[in-house]
């Protein structure tokens, strides 16, 4: 099928994208690595040059960093649990023959398409505001005092917002996987006398296990970079209660203008993401063979 000519043409045609992506990835990344070895502050006149791994040791021992790492893991972990478990339940529900499937799907998927700044501000103000928010009204009607979400439970609030954004993604992917489970397996299971719980455990779960893994890996990649929601609601606060690694790097780079330190943080974020990416690429790679 391919001749020398088409192969040669192929190389030329793919070159621009390869060059661009290579430049996009390698050049800035290399620069980040380089900066992370410098003492370089945009504010200070004191740019004393190469300090080796000093930024890393400083960064890693900075209590703010420990907090940010902790927050990142909590955020990612919690959203994963909520969106995947919730996603499974929603997917199971939507897989049923229910009246008005199309409208239902639209409603369930919609939050994923809302831009993060809108999501965050709508939740913070219209829903979670302790004075006039909807949740406050619900609490009062039920006889409780309203929860002061973002002040008293900042991390939880952010988790709720981000989970709401990602639940549709998980639901959609898992629903797609569920729908590939053919009728015959279901019928065979019922003939074998399987009740709904064992049906779920022995038939459904293994079938969607791959989809669950993919959802987890992909969400993790994106959740490690949650930024806008925090930027718009808590600015990482109170204190560093909702500062995750992306926000910490941002703060150090664009607010504190400490390039060296921010770069070290950036490198650490890349390392974290790479760990997840390796697993994800293995699955994608297997799929590309097929």
């Amino acid at each position, binding site marked *: *099928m391919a*001749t*020398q*000519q088409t192969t040669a043409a192929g190389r030329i045609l793919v070159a621009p994208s390869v060059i661009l992506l290579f430049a996009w990835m390698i050049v800035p990344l290399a620069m980040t690595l380089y900066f992370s070895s410098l003492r370089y502050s945009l504010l200070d006149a004191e740019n004393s040059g190469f300090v080796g791994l000093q930024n890393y040791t400083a960064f890693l021992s900075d209590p703010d960093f420990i907090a940010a790492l902790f927050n990142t893991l909590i955020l990612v972990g919690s959203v994963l649990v909520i969106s995947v478990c919730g996603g499974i339940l929603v997917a199971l529900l939507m897989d049923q023959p229910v009246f008005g499937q199309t409208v239902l799907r639209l409603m369930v998927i919609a939050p994923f398409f809302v831009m993060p700044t809108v999501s965050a501000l709508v939740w913070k103000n219209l829903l979670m505001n302790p004075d006039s928010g909807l949740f406050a009204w619900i609490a009062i009607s039920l006889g409780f005092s309203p929860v002061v979400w973002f002040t008293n439970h900042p991390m939880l609030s952010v988790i709720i917002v981000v989970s709401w954004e990602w639940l549709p993604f998980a639901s959609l992917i898992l629903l797609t996987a569920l729908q590939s489970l053919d009728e015959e397996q279901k019928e065979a299971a019922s003939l074998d006398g399987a009740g709904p719980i064992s049906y779920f455990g022995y038939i459904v779960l293994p079938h969607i296990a791959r989809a669950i893994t993919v959802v987890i890996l992909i969400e993790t990649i994106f959740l490690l970079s949650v930024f806008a929601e925090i930027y718009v609601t808590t600015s990482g606060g109170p204190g560093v209660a909702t500062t995750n690694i992306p926000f910490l790097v941002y703060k150090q780079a664009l607010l504190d203008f400490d390039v060296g330190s921010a770069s070290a943080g950036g490198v650490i974020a890349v390392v974290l993401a790479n760990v997840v990416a390796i697993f994800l690429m293995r699955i994608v790679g297997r799929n590309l063979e097929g």
Partner: protein
Amino acid sequence: MGSIELVNVCKAFGGVKVINSVDFAITDGSFTVFVGPSGCGKSTLLRMIAGLEDVTSGQVLIDGLDMTNIGPAKRGLAMVFQSYALYPHMSVRGNIAFALKMARQPANVIEQKVKKAAGILNLTEYLDRKPRELSGGQRQRVAIGRAIVREPKAFLFDEPLSNLDAALRVQMRVEIDELHQKLKTTMVYVTHDQVEAMTMADRIVVLDKGAVAQIGSPLELYNKPNGLFVASFIGSPTMNLVMGPSAAKRGATTLGVRPEHVELSTTAGEWPAQVLHAEHLGSETFIYARAEGIGPLTIRLSGEATHHAGDRIFVTPREAHVHRFDKDGKRIG
């Protein structure tokens, strides 16, 4: 204006030799068929002539010019694909006109040529239809029309009839043949069906595992196969092959005799046999028998015959039509 020459053409994929030193010439205006079993390399060879596959070593000459490194667009050849490869988003007219459009011909010239090609192939009514609205045979014709309109040096057909049903296949065979008579352009035709080869070709190139087994006219191959492979491949039903004393008696390791070249008797003959199965087609009868010490034999009788399974018969080959092969499978004499 359409002579093609293959000079020591080889093709290797990785380390595997797919085409092994193929060397022959196709004369202008002839109808040449490449035939052989699956995997023999006939399609690959055709595609190398077309420029869709690289040549590892050797040369492809078209009208005496070395086209080995020239792309398919510039060779002046037209190809009819097995799957027809019609452009699904264009109408029949668009499909046929595309090549002319690529050649930047003026619109009125294109229109005229398209009409002419459509006329030859009975496609005029369908010019505005899309390929998905056509039957298999019609699509086949559009594929041919697309080729004709370019007035190429040669037509290349890659198993064009394999996707058609039997009746349509016979009809299209005739039409392609008539097309050849009319246009007098070189045609190179690939098929695995030796009946198509025998009925359509001026010359047949029989290929086996990437090498040429024999080249000749249909009757040459039928009457004088140069080896066991060609002998078994050409002719339907397959030639009877007999080893043992009968062959040795005649100075060969293997004897070949076609089902239509034997005498059948219920009383006496060289090879006693028992009828396993008889096929009565009315116009002819095929007898499948097992001969003692020899093995299965196929006999072809004209008209109707009364033999049935279980009958005892005697089969005698007609000496004039006996083929002899040596221990390497090559022809003797």
